[in-house]
């Protein structure tokens, strides 16, 4: 169709604007760098010895990995979650400061505008995830080129789904101030209840698990989609899976489509 090229040009334009804004926003960039450093340097290094159960003289390896290695993929996901969900601020900003109207009177169809925006947000979030990959050597994670490529592709898909989720949230929230509080109450619980900072030992049966953790926590972890998202990335980066990896990939795929459609419904109203 002859009108396809202009739409592509428009999507590129919208994408480009998001990228320019993300790279110029020093605060966001600073957060993207300092967050993984704090998590890995302080929490990761601090808890590293305890993870091996060496403390009380008896050495028992919970997993064949150090805590830093175990935490590393989760920190990537955390960085992606923050950047993606904070992307909602960009949507609220457009709405509050009138720029959205400039986009909505343009001949671009609404889905294309949203696609451009989400691709832009997902690119920025993937960038922040990739920043963490640079710290891989420091966390004793050795990566091959195909692993890196696979990880980036997966991170992009995850970012896309989470960015769409951010747009959905933006539709529900009226103000910036509200959103700051809101995003923290969404991100952190999702993150902590996802087997990100402590492992569910896969060798244990469910009854044994319940013996070491309260039932509700296990339920929460099983019900949390981020659990599977983190798990799939662990599979790619350190070859460790607590669950079948296709659950993670499947959920991310469903999230991409489902949240995009949901976001489309709320976008531009």
């Amino acid at each position: 169709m002859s009108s396809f090229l202009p739409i592509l040009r428009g999507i590129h334009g919208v994408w480009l604007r998001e990228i320019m804004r993300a790279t110029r926003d020093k605060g966001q960039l600073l957060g993207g760098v300092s967050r993984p450093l704090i998590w890995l340097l302080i929490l990761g290094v601090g808890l590293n010895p305890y993870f091996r159960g060496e403390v009380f003289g008896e050495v028992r390896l919970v997993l064949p990995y150090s805590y830093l290695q175990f935490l590393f993929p989760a920190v990537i996901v955390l960085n992606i979650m923050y950047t993606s969900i904070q992307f909602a601020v960009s949507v609220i900003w457009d709405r509050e400061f009138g720029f959205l109207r400039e986009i909505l009177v343009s001949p671009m169809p609404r889905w294309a505008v949203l696609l451009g925006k989400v691709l832009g947000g997902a690119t920025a979030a993937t960038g922040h995830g990739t920043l963490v990959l640079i710290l891989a050597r420091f966390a004793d994670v050795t990566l091959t080129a195909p692993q890196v490529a696979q990880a980036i592709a997966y991170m992009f898909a995850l970012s896309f789904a989470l960015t769409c989720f951010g747009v959905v949230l933006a539709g529900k929230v009226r103000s910036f101030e509200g959103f700051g509080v809101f995003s923290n109450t969404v991100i952190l619980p999702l993150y902590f209840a996802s087997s990100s900072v402590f492992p569910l030992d896969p060798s244990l049966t469910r009854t044994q698990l319940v013996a070491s953790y309260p039932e509700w926590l296990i339920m929460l972890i099983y019900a949390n989609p981020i659990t599977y998202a983190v798990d799939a990335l662990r599979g790619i980066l350190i070859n460790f899976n607590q669950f079948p990896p296709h659950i993670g990939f499947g959920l991310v795929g469903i999230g991409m489509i489902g949240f995009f459609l949901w976001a489309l419904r709320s976008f531009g109203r």
Partner: protein
Amino acid sequence: MIPAAGFPNRQGLHFTRASPRPYICGLSLRPPEEYGRGEVNQTNCQEADFAGRSISLLIQPHETAERAGPAVRVEHLSLKYGGQVALDDVSLSVGRGSSFALLGPNGAGKTSLISVLATLRDADKGLVEVAGHDVCRASRQVRLSIGMVFQDPSLDDRLSAEENLDFHGRVYGIPGRLRAEAIDRVLDLVELTGWREAIVRSFSGGMKRRLEIARALMHKPQILFLDEPTVGLDAQTRARIWAYLNRQRRERGLTLLTTTHYIEEVEDADRICIIDKGRIIAEGTPGQLKRELGQSFLHVVAATPADHAALLAAYPDSHAVSPEALAIPAGDEDFVAGFLARFGNRLREMRFEGPTLEGVFLSLTGRVLRDRTDGEREAQRNAGRRAGRR
């Protein structure tokens, strides 16, 4: 019938006797069937003296000739926000290549009307066609043919001027080379070439406004909606932008639909539509409106509150234009003479105003049009106070 022999190209001429005076429609090589009939009016014709007789030539540019009919057609449009009526049975028609002004006080529904025309809001009832397309069914076609200057700011002030324009060009699907040319052209028009790479946040209010107007012109729209476009612009810039817009109108049939609070800009419009509380209360050329509805007013300020009350009692049809000033409808010179005989020594200030659009507005709505910017009004009020104290 006009002899067509005088024209070199007979094929492109098309005669119509729809109006009392003969019109020649279309100076083009296109066959006459492609032109719409019945849309000849004062606004899209240019008069020319031909063979000793005054006739009108319809200059209809090629691109707009593709779709016949008016640029904007609105019939029985109604719009509600929740339960509140914003537009109530509005009907109007804007000829191609004409300049149409919407005049109305705050909250009249001007912005609401423009939002419907620009496909940003769906009407509750009624038919709306822009550039020959229905705004609901063919919104993409409509959006391709319109340009928009919003009342409220709509720039990304964290990007530079050039980046804002480049974004606009991309979103409208303009390819790279043309985009760069268009950016140069419009930046030059609004004299912001030197600010190309500056971040918009550092711009003054007027500069931002100019950039928005430049942006709306970038994709060469057929119809331009301007919602109070020149608020905050100095007289020089305003004149320059209007000169450019009017040239575009002549050269390529650009249609302008403006809401403005500057009466002097409305005077230049082909047609004016006065809107109040969501209803159209008058429509016509500026001359027509002044002739038919215009009234002379005597603007007076009484010397004391007692005199003020006396004035109100004597002229119950007068309008309060400010807490102190009254506008009294003045019939003719005799009225003024009679008035002066009665109240001449009980006034502090008096001014006679012949039929103006402001007067039209005042007699229709009983209110003065808030046509001055707040700063200006403030300054006037202060000046008045100072004068009063002395």
